[in-house]
Protein backbone atom coordinates (compact mmCIF):
# COMPACT_ATOMS: atom_id res chain seq x y z
CA UNK A 1 0.00 0.00 0.00
CA UNK A 2 1.43 3.34 -1.10
CA UNK A 3 1.18 5.58 1.97
CA UNK A 4 1.83 8.85 0.14
CA UNK A 5 -1.13 8.45 -2.11
CA UNK A 6 -4.08 10.35 -0.67
CA UNK A 7 -7.03 8.19 0.33
CA UNK A 8 -10.20 8.52 -1.73
CA UNK A 9 -13.34 9.28 0.24
CA UNK A 10 -16.82 9.31 -1.30
CA UNK A 11 -19.51 11.38 0.40
CA UNK A 12 -23.08 10.41 -0.46
CA UNK A 13 -25.27 13.22 0.92
CA UNK A 14 -28.27 15.05 -0.48
CA UNK A 15 -28.09 18.15 1.74
CA UNK A 16 -25.90 20.63 -0.12
CA UNK A 17 -24.64 22.54 2.88
CA UNK A 18 -23.70 19.49 4.95
CA UNK A 19 -22.08 17.98 1.89
CA UNK A 20 -19.93 21.03 1.24
CA UNK A 21 -18.85 21.38 4.89
CA UNK A 22 -17.96 17.71 5.04
CA UNK A 23 -16.03 17.82 1.76
CA UNK A 24 -14.17 20.95 2.78
CA UNK A 25 -13.08 19.48 6.10
CA UNK A 26 -11.84 16.26 4.53
CA UNK A 27 -10.00 18.07 1.76
CA UNK A 28 -8.27 20.21 4.39
CA UNK A 29 -7.13 16.97 5.97
CA UNK A 30 -5.56 15.85 2.71
CA UNK A 31 -8.13 13.34 1.51
CA UNK A 32 -9.26 13.12 -2.10
CA UNK A 33 -12.97 13.75 -1.90
CA UNK A 34 -15.74 12.94 -4.37
CA UNK A 35 -19.44 13.44 -3.85
CA UNK A 36 -22.74 11.91 -4.92
CA UNK A 37 -26.02 13.75 -4.35
CA UNK A 38 -28.35 10.76 -4.50
CA UNK A 39 -28.43 6.98 -4.42
CA UNK A 40 -28.35 6.33 -8.15
CA UNK A 41 -25.33 8.58 -8.75
CA UNK A 42 -23.57 6.80 -5.90
CA UNK A 43 -24.25 3.42 -7.47
CA UNK A 44 -22.88 4.69 -10.79
CA UNK A 45 -19.81 6.28 -9.25
CA UNK A 46 -18.62 3.64 -6.80
CA UNK A 47 -17.60 0.82 -9.16
CA UNK A 48 -15.82 3.36 -11.36
CA UNK A 49 -13.95 5.25 -8.64
CA UNK A 50 -13.50 2.46 -6.07
CA UNK A 51 -13.06 4.81 -3.09
CA UNK A 52 -11.18 3.73 0.04
CA UNK A 53 -14.09 4.67 2.25
CA UNK A 54 -17.72 5.71 1.75
CA UNK A 55 -19.80 8.06 3.91
CA UNK A 56 -23.39 7.09 3.24
CA UNK A 57 -26.47 9.08 4.16
CA UNK A 58 -29.66 7.02 4.45
CA UNK A 59 -32.45 9.39 3.46
CA UNK A 60 -31.72 10.04 -0.21
CA UNK A 61 -34.03 10.92 -3.08
CA UNK A 62 -34.83 7.98 -5.33
CA UNK A 63 -32.69 5.01 -4.36
CA UNK A 64 -32.22 5.21 -0.59
CA UNK A 65 -29.09 4.55 1.44
CA UNK A 66 -30.08 1.03 2.46
CA UNK A 67 -30.48 0.06 -1.20
CA UNK A 68 -27.08 1.51 -2.04
CA UNK A 69 -25.51 -0.35 0.87
CA UNK A 70 -27.11 -3.61 -0.17
CA UNK A 71 -25.95 -3.29 -3.75
CA UNK A 72 -22.38 -2.31 -2.83
CA UNK A 73 -22.02 -5.26 -0.50
CA UNK A 74 -23.45 -7.61 -3.10
CA UNK A 75 -20.96 -6.61 -5.79
CA UNK A 76 -17.65 -8.49 -5.68
CA UNK A 77 -15.71 -5.47 -6.84
CA UNK A 78 -17.06 -3.13 -4.19
CA UNK A 79 -18.00 -5.24 -1.19
CA UNK A 80 -14.69 -4.74 0.60
CA UNK A 81 -14.99 -0.96 0.73
CA UNK A 82 -15.75 0.14 4.32
CA UNK A 83 -19.04 2.04 4.54
CA UNK A 84 -19.76 4.40 7.41
CA UNK A 85 -23.44 5.21 7.55
CA UNK A 86 -23.65 8.90 8.33
CA UNK A 87 -27.29 9.73 8.94
CA UNK A 88 -29.65 11.64 11.14
CA UNK A 89 -32.02 8.71 11.45
CA UNK A 90 -31.58 7.13 14.80
CA UNK A 91 -34.16 4.47 15.52
CA UNK A 92 -32.79 1.19 16.77
CA UNK A 93 -34.21 -0.62 13.76
CA UNK A 94 -32.29 1.64 11.37
CA UNK A 95 -29.01 1.05 13.17
CA UNK A 96 -29.55 -2.69 13.27
CA UNK A 97 -30.57 -2.79 9.63
CA UNK A 98 -27.46 -0.90 8.60
CA UNK A 99 -25.19 -3.22 10.57
CA UNK A 100 -26.93 -6.27 9.17
CA UNK A 101 -26.40 -4.99 5.65
CA UNK A 102 -22.68 -4.73 6.27
CA UNK A 103 -22.07 -1.17 7.39
CA UNK A 104 -18.82 -0.66 9.26
CA UNK A 105 -20.29 1.90 11.60
CA UNK A 106 -23.33 4.11 12.15
CA UNK A 107 -22.77 7.73 13.12
CA UNK A 108 -25.55 10.20 13.83
CA UNK A 109 -24.45 13.42 12.13
CA UNK A 110 -25.72 15.71 14.85
CA UNK A 111 -23.76 13.86 17.54
CA UNK A 112 -20.33 14.36 16.02
CA UNK A 113 -18.15 17.18 14.80
CA UNK A 114 -16.22 16.89 11.59
CA UNK A 115 -13.02 16.55 13.58
CA UNK A 116 -14.53 13.41 15.15
CA UNK A 117 -15.29 12.23 11.63
CA UNK A 118 -11.66 12.67 10.62
CA UNK A 119 -10.54 10.64 13.64
CA UNK A 120 -12.99 7.91 12.69
CA UNK A 121 -11.70 7.78 9.12
CA UNK A 122 -8.15 7.44 10.30
CA UNK A 123 -9.19 4.67 12.64
CA UNK A 124 -11.03 2.73 9.93
CA UNK A 125 -8.37 3.15 7.29
CA UNK A 126 -5.56 2.01 9.55
Amino acid sequence: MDNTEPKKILIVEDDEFLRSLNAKRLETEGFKVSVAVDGQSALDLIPKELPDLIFLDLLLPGVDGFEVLKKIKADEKTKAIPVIVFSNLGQKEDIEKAHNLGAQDFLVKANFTLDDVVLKIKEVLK
Partner: protein
Amino acid sequence: MHWPTIENYAGDWYNKGVLILDPFLNFSFINYPSFWVILLVFFIAVFYLGRFWQSRESRLQLLIDEANLKTQQIQELEKVNRELEVKNRELYSKELGLTLANKKLQTLEEAKSKFISVATHQLRTPLAAIKWTLDMTAKGQLGPVNDDQKKFLLQGLTSTNRVISIVNDLLKVDSIDADQADYNFAPTDLVKLISNLIFEFNSQAALKKINFVFLKPQTAVPLVEIDADKIRMVVENLIDNAVKYTPENGQVTVKISDEQLNRAEGSLVVSVTDSGIGIPASETDKIFHKFFRASNAIKAEPDGSGLGLFIARDIIEKHGGAIWFENQSGSGPQGTVFSFTLPLHQKKV
Protein backbone atom coordinates in the same frame (compact mmCIF):
# COMPACT_ATOMS: atom_id res chain seq x y z
CA MET B 1 -139.29 -84.65 43.86
CA HIS B 2 -139.24 -81.73 46.18
CA TRP B 3 -139.56 -78.71 43.95
CA PRO B 4 -138.64 -75.46 45.89
CA THR B 5 -141.59 -73.13 45.89
CA ILE B 6 -141.36 -69.37 46.27
CA GLU B 7 -142.36 -69.73 49.81
CA ASN B 8 -139.82 -72.41 50.36
CA TYR B 9 -137.16 -70.39 48.71
CA ALA B 10 -137.90 -67.28 50.67
CA GLY B 11 -138.29 -69.36 53.79
CA ASP B 12 -134.90 -70.87 53.16
CA TRP B 13 -133.25 -67.47 52.95
CA TYR B 14 -135.21 -66.26 55.97
CA ASN B 15 -133.87 -69.17 57.91
CA LYS B 16 -130.35 -68.50 56.78
CA GLY B 17 -130.80 -64.86 57.60
CA VAL B 18 -132.07 -65.66 61.03
CA LEU B 19 -129.09 -67.96 61.52
CA ILE B 20 -126.64 -65.19 60.68
CA LEU B 21 -128.44 -62.31 62.31
CA ASP B 22 -129.33 -64.14 65.45
CA PRO B 23 -125.98 -63.71 67.22
CA PHE B 24 -126.10 -60.07 66.46
CA LEU B 25 -129.61 -59.54 67.67
CA ASN B 26 -128.84 -61.34 70.89
CA PHE B 27 -125.47 -59.69 71.37
CA SER B 28 -124.21 -63.23 71.72
CA PHE B 29 -121.70 -62.48 68.97
CA ILE B 30 -119.32 -61.51 71.73
CA ASN B 31 -119.02 -65.17 72.49
CA TYR B 32 -117.65 -65.85 69.08
CA PRO B 33 -113.86 -65.42 69.00
CA SER B 34 -113.92 -65.07 65.25
CA PHE B 35 -116.01 -61.97 65.80
CA TRP B 36 -113.30 -60.39 67.89
CA VAL B 37 -110.62 -61.47 65.44
CA ILE B 38 -112.53 -59.90 62.63
CA LEU B 39 -113.07 -56.78 64.71
CA LEU B 40 -109.38 -56.56 65.52
CA VAL B 41 -108.42 -57.08 61.94
CA PHE B 42 -110.96 -54.45 61.04
CA PHE B 43 -109.49 -51.86 63.41
CA ILE B 44 -105.95 -52.68 62.38
CA ALA B 45 -106.92 -52.32 58.76
CA VAL B 46 -108.60 -48.98 59.45
CA PHE B 47 -105.56 -47.82 61.34
CA TYR B 48 -103.15 -48.64 58.57
CA LEU B 49 -105.47 -47.39 55.97
CA GLY B 50 -105.62 -44.13 57.81
CA ARG B 51 -101.88 -43.89 57.94
CA PHE B 52 -101.55 -44.85 54.35
CA TRP B 53 -104.04 -42.25 53.38
CA GLN B 54 -102.23 -39.60 55.41
CA SER B 55 -98.87 -40.44 53.96
CA ARG B 56 -100.37 -40.43 50.53
CA GLU B 57 -101.75 -37.03 51.26
CA SER B 58 -98.41 -35.76 52.47
CA ARG B 59 -96.56 -37.41 49.59
CA LEU B 60 -98.94 -35.81 47.22
CA GLN B 61 -98.40 -32.51 48.93
CA LEU B 62 -94.64 -33.02 48.68
CA LEU B 63 -94.91 -33.76 45.00
CA ILE B 64 -97.03 -30.68 44.54
CA ASP B 65 -94.56 -28.59 46.48
CA GLU B 66 -91.71 -30.04 44.46
CA ALA B 67 -93.51 -29.33 41.26
CA ASN B 68 -94.15 -25.77 42.40
CA LEU B 69 -90.53 -25.35 43.37
CA LYS B 70 -89.35 -26.72 40.07
CA THR B 71 -91.63 -24.38 38.22
CA GLN B 72 -90.29 -21.52 40.27
CA GLN B 73 -86.72 -22.59 39.58
CA ILE B 74 -87.39 -22.88 35.89
CA GLN B 75 -88.86 -19.41 35.89
CA GLU B 76 -85.87 -18.04 37.75
CA LEU B 77 -83.48 -19.82 35.41
CA GLU B 78 -85.25 -18.37 32.46
CA LYS B 79 -84.96 -14.96 34.07
CA VAL B 80 -81.25 -15.45 34.68
CA ASN B 81 -80.82 -16.70 31.13
CA ARG B 82 -82.44 -13.59 29.77
CA GLU B 83 -80.18 -11.41 31.93
CA LEU B 84 -77.18 -13.41 30.74
CA GLU B 85 -78.16 -12.84 27.16
CA VAL B 86 -78.37 -9.15 27.80
CA LYS B 87 -74.97 -9.14 29.53
CA ASN B 88 -73.49 -11.21 26.73
CA ARG B 89 -74.62 -8.71 24.19
CA GLU B 90 -73.16 -5.93 26.30
CA LEU B 91 -69.88 -7.81 26.58
CA TYR B 92 -69.79 -8.41 22.87
CA SER B 93 -70.25 -4.77 22.07
CA LYS B 94 -67.65 -3.85 24.72
CA GLU B 95 -65.25 -6.32 23.12
CA LEU B 96 -65.84 -4.73 19.76
CA GLY B 97 -65.22 -1.38 21.37
CA LEU B 98 -61.97 -2.61 22.90
CA THR B 99 -60.78 -4.13 19.64
CA LEU B 100 -61.44 -0.88 17.87
CA ALA B 101 -59.70 1.07 20.62
CA ASN B 102 -56.75 -1.29 20.38
CA LYS B 103 -56.53 -0.80 16.65
CA LYS B 104 -56.69 2.92 17.15
CA LEU B 105 -53.94 2.72 19.77
CA GLN B 106 -51.76 0.69 17.45
CA THR B 107 -52.26 3.21 14.68
CA LEU B 108 -51.41 5.98 17.12
CA GLU B 109 -48.30 4.14 18.30
CA GLU B 110 -47.11 3.70 14.75
CA ALA B 111 -47.92 7.31 13.98
CA LYS B 112 -46.03 8.42 17.07
CA SER B 113 -43.03 6.31 16.14
CA LYS B 114 -43.09 7.65 12.63
CA PHE B 115 -43.49 11.20 13.88
CA ILE B 116 -40.59 10.87 16.27
CA SER B 117 -38.53 9.33 13.50
CA VAL B 118 -39.29 12.12 11.06
CA ALA B 119 -39.07 14.86 13.69
CA THR B 120 -35.68 13.76 14.94
CA HIS B 121 -34.35 13.56 11.42
CA GLN B 122 -35.81 16.90 10.36
CA LEU B 123 -34.46 18.58 13.48
CA ARG B 124 -31.09 16.92 13.45
CA THR B 125 -30.15 17.89 9.91
CA PRO B 126 -30.14 21.66 10.41
CA LEU B 127 -28.75 21.16 13.93
CA ALA B 128 -25.81 19.26 12.47
CA ALA B 129 -25.28 22.07 10.01
CA ILE B 130 -25.22 24.67 12.79
CA LYS B 131 -22.97 22.53 14.95
CA TRP B 132 -20.42 21.94 12.21
CA THR B 133 -20.40 25.58 11.13
CA LEU B 134 -19.81 26.84 14.66
CA ASP B 135 -17.23 24.17 15.36
CA MET B 136 -15.23 24.69 12.18
CA THR B 137 -15.38 28.46 12.45
CA ALA B 138 -14.30 28.44 16.09
CA LYS B 139 -11.34 26.24 15.22
CA GLY B 140 -10.29 28.61 12.45
CA GLN B 141 -10.97 26.04 9.75
CA LEU B 142 -13.10 28.47 7.77
CA GLY B 143 -10.81 31.44 8.13
CA PRO B 144 -9.07 33.24 10.98
CA VAL B 145 -11.02 34.18 14.10
CA ASN B 146 -9.84 36.13 17.10
CA ASP B 147 -10.11 34.85 20.66
CA ASP B 148 -13.15 36.97 21.41
CA GLN B 149 -15.04 35.60 18.44
CA LYS B 150 -13.90 32.12 19.31
CA LYS B 151 -15.37 32.44 22.81
CA PHE B 152 -18.78 33.39 21.48
CA LEU B 153 -18.75 30.74 18.83
CA LEU B 154 -18.00 28.08 21.45
CA GLN B 155 -20.92 29.31 23.56
CA GLY B 156 -23.16 28.91 20.56
CA LEU B 157 -21.76 25.45 20.04
CA THR B 158 -22.54 24.44 23.62
CA SER B 159 -26.12 25.62 23.23
CA THR B 160 -26.45 23.70 20.01
CA ASN B 161 -25.23 20.55 21.70
CA ARG B 162 -27.88 21.07 24.37
CA VAL B 163 -30.64 21.18 21.81
CA ILE B 164 -29.28 18.11 20.03
CA SER B 165 -29.28 16.27 23.33
CA ILE B 166 -32.93 17.14 23.95
CA VAL B 167 -33.86 15.98 20.45
CA ASN B 168 -32.02 12.72 21.14
CA ASP B 169 -34.12 12.36 24.28
CA LEU B 170 -37.24 12.24 22.10
CA LEU B 171 -36.12 8.88 20.80
CA LYS B 172 -35.61 7.61 24.32
CA VAL B 173 -39.15 8.59 25.31
CA ASP B 174 -40.34 5.57 23.38
CA SER B 175 -38.34 3.29 25.63
CA ILE B 176 -39.65 4.57 28.95
CA ASP B 177 -42.55 2.16 29.14
CA ALA B 178 -40.76 -0.87 27.76
CA ASP B 179 -41.48 -4.12 29.59
CA GLN B 180 -38.75 -6.54 30.32
CA ALA B 181 -40.22 -8.65 27.53
CA ASP B 182 -39.25 -5.93 25.08
CA TYR B 183 -35.64 -6.10 26.17
CA ASN B 184 -33.24 -7.92 23.85
CA PHE B 185 -30.48 -9.44 25.92
CA ALA B 186 -27.36 -10.49 24.05
CA PRO B 187 -23.69 -11.00 25.01
CA THR B 188 -22.08 -7.61 24.52
CA ASP B 189 -18.61 -6.14 24.62
CA LEU B 190 -19.06 -3.46 27.27
CA VAL B 191 -15.59 -2.02 26.70
CA LYS B 192 -16.37 -1.31 23.06
CA LEU B 193 -19.77 0.15 23.91
CA ILE B 194 -18.26 2.59 26.39
CA SER B 195 -15.31 3.46 24.13
CA ASN B 196 -17.69 4.44 21.35
CA LEU B 197 -19.67 6.60 23.74
CA ILE B 198 -16.61 8.37 25.06
CA PHE B 199 -15.62 9.07 21.47
CA GLU B 200 -19.00 10.70 20.96
CA PHE B 201 -18.42 13.02 23.89
CA ASN B 202 -14.90 13.96 22.87
CA SER B 203 -15.80 17.24 21.26
CA GLN B 204 -18.11 18.32 24.08
CA ALA B 205 -15.51 17.50 26.69
CA ALA B 206 -12.89 19.36 24.68
CA LEU B 207 -15.11 22.45 24.64
CA LYS B 208 -14.86 22.62 28.42
CA LYS B 209 -11.29 21.34 28.47
CA ILE B 210 -12.49 18.39 30.48
CA ASN B 211 -10.13 15.45 30.74
CA PHE B 212 -11.63 12.06 29.95
CA VAL B 213 -10.19 8.95 31.56
CA PHE B 214 -11.31 5.41 30.77
CA LEU B 215 -10.21 2.77 33.28
CA LYS B 216 -10.62 -0.93 32.66
CA PRO B 217 -9.27 -4.05 34.36
CA GLN B 218 -5.96 -5.60 33.39
CA THR B 219 -7.54 -8.88 32.41
CA ALA B 220 -10.01 -9.08 29.56
CA VAL B 221 -13.57 -8.19 30.45
CA PRO B 222 -16.03 -10.99 29.68
CA LEU B 223 -19.04 -10.40 27.47
CA VAL B 224 -22.07 -9.39 29.50
CA GLU B 225 -25.65 -10.33 28.66
CA ILE B 226 -27.40 -6.97 28.24
CA ASP B 227 -29.75 -5.00 26.05
CA ALA B 228 -26.94 -3.00 24.46
CA ASP B 229 -29.22 -0.24 23.26
CA LYS B 230 -30.68 0.41 26.69
CA ILE B 231 -27.38 0.21 28.59
CA ARG B 232 -25.93 2.60 26.06
CA MET B 233 -28.64 5.09 27.03
CA VAL B 234 -27.75 4.68 30.70
CA VAL B 235 -24.01 5.28 30.24
CA GLU B 236 -24.73 8.10 27.82
CA ASN B 237 -26.93 9.77 30.41
CA LEU B 238 -24.33 9.39 33.17
CA ILE B 239 -21.52 10.76 31.00
CA ASP B 240 -23.75 13.56 29.73
CA ASN B 241 -24.52 14.57 33.32
CA ALA B 242 -20.87 14.33 34.30
CA VAL B 243 -19.75 16.59 31.46
CA LYS B 244 -22.73 18.93 31.93
CA TYR B 245 -22.19 19.57 35.61
CA THR B 246 -18.40 19.63 35.67
CA PRO B 247 -16.77 23.04 35.27
CA GLU B 248 -13.93 23.83 32.90
CA ASN B 249 -10.69 21.95 33.30
CA GLY B 250 -12.43 19.23 35.28
CA GLN B 251 -12.13 15.48 34.92
CA VAL B 252 -14.54 12.70 34.09
CA THR B 253 -13.50 9.12 34.76
CA VAL B 254 -15.37 6.12 33.41
CA LYS B 255 -14.37 2.86 35.02
CA ILE B 256 -15.26 -0.78 34.43
CA SER B 257 -14.45 -2.97 37.37
CA ASP B 258 -14.40 -6.74 37.73
CA GLU B 259 -14.29 -6.67 41.52
CA GLN B 260 -17.70 -8.35 41.76
CA LEU B 261 -16.97 -10.92 39.09
CA ASN B 262 -15.98 -13.82 41.31
CA ARG B 263 -19.21 -14.07 43.22
CA ALA B 264 -21.88 -16.72 42.71
CA GLU B 265 -23.70 -14.39 40.35
CA GLY B 266 -20.85 -12.35 38.99
CA SER B 267 -21.40 -8.87 37.72
CA LEU B 268 -19.49 -5.97 36.27
CA VAL B 269 -19.44 -2.61 38.01
CA VAL B 270 -19.43 0.55 35.91
CA SER B 271 -18.84 3.93 37.49
CA VAL B 272 -18.75 7.48 36.19
CA THR B 273 -16.93 10.00 38.33
CA ASP B 274 -16.99 13.72 37.77
CA SER B 275 -15.43 16.71 39.50
CA GLY B 276 -18.58 18.75 39.33
CA ILE B 277 -21.22 20.48 41.37
CA GLY B 278 -22.20 17.45 43.44
CA ILE B 279 -25.64 16.61 44.78
CA PRO B 280 -27.08 18.54 47.74
CA ALA B 281 -27.59 16.34 50.79
CA SER B 282 -31.22 17.43 51.16
CA GLU B 283 -32.08 16.25 47.67
CA THR B 284 -30.26 12.93 47.46
CA ASP B 285 -33.38 10.82 47.98
CA LYS B 286 -35.16 12.37 45.01
CA ILE B 287 -32.40 12.10 42.45
CA PHE B 288 -33.89 9.08 40.70
CA HIS B 289 -37.43 10.42 40.70
CA LYS B 290 -39.22 11.15 37.44
CA PHE B 291 -38.75 14.73 36.28
CA PHE B 292 -36.74 15.67 39.36
CA ARG B 293 -33.77 17.96 38.87
CA ALA B 294 -31.61 19.07 41.78
CA SER B 295 -31.69 22.79 42.52
CA ASN B 296 -28.01 23.30 41.78
CA ALA B 297 -28.38 21.39 38.54
CA ILE B 298 -31.15 23.67 37.35
CA LYS B 299 -29.00 26.67 38.18
CA ALA B 300 -26.02 25.29 36.30
CA GLU B 301 -27.99 24.11 33.32
CA PRO B 302 -31.53 25.45 32.88
CA ASP B 303 -32.42 22.91 30.21
CA GLY B 304 -33.00 19.32 31.07
CA SER B 305 -35.90 16.89 31.18
CA GLY B 306 -35.16 15.30 34.55
CA LEU B 307 -35.92 11.97 32.97
CA GLY B 308 -32.40 10.64 32.49
CA LEU B 309 -31.74 9.06 35.88
CA PHE B 310 -35.33 7.88 36.19
CA ILE B 311 -35.00 5.98 32.94
CA ALA B 312 -31.50 4.81 33.88
CA ARG B 313 -32.68 3.26 37.12
CA ASP B 314 -35.56 1.52 35.40
CA ILE B 315 -33.22 0.01 32.83
CA ILE B 316 -30.62 -1.12 35.35
CA GLU B 317 -33.26 -2.73 37.54
CA LYS B 318 -34.73 -4.56 34.56
CA HIS B 319 -31.25 -5.97 34.07
CA GLY B 320 -31.24 -7.22 37.63
CA GLY B 321 -28.60 -4.71 38.64
CA ALA B 322 -28.45 -1.79 41.05
CA ILE B 323 -27.56 1.87 40.56
CA TRP B 324 -26.39 4.31 43.21
CA PHE B 325 -24.26 7.37 43.73
CA GLU B 326 -21.86 8.80 46.26
CA ASN B 327 -20.78 12.33 46.71
CA GLN B 328 -17.07 12.80 46.64
CA SER B 329 -16.04 14.01 50.02
CA GLY B 330 -12.90 15.24 51.56
CA SER B 331 -10.68 18.10 50.69
CA GLY B 332 -10.28 17.12 47.07
CA PRO B 333 -12.46 18.30 44.21
CA GLN B 334 -16.17 18.03 44.74
CA GLY B 335 -18.08 15.82 42.44
CA THR B 336 -20.12 12.68 42.33
CA VAL B 337 -19.61 9.03 41.52
CA PHE B 338 -22.50 7.22 39.88
CA SER B 339 -22.15 3.43 39.80
CA PHE B 340 -24.21 0.51 38.59
CA THR B 341 -23.86 -3.25 38.47
CA LEU B 342 -24.65 -5.50 35.53
CA PRO B 343 -25.07 -9.23 36.13
CA LEU B 344 -23.05 -11.20 33.59
CA HIS B 345 -25.98 -13.45 32.82
CA GLN B 346 -29.71 -12.94 32.77
CA LYS B 347 -31.97 -15.52 34.38
CA LYS B 348 -34.13 -17.20 31.78
CA VAL B 349 -37.76 -16.47 32.58
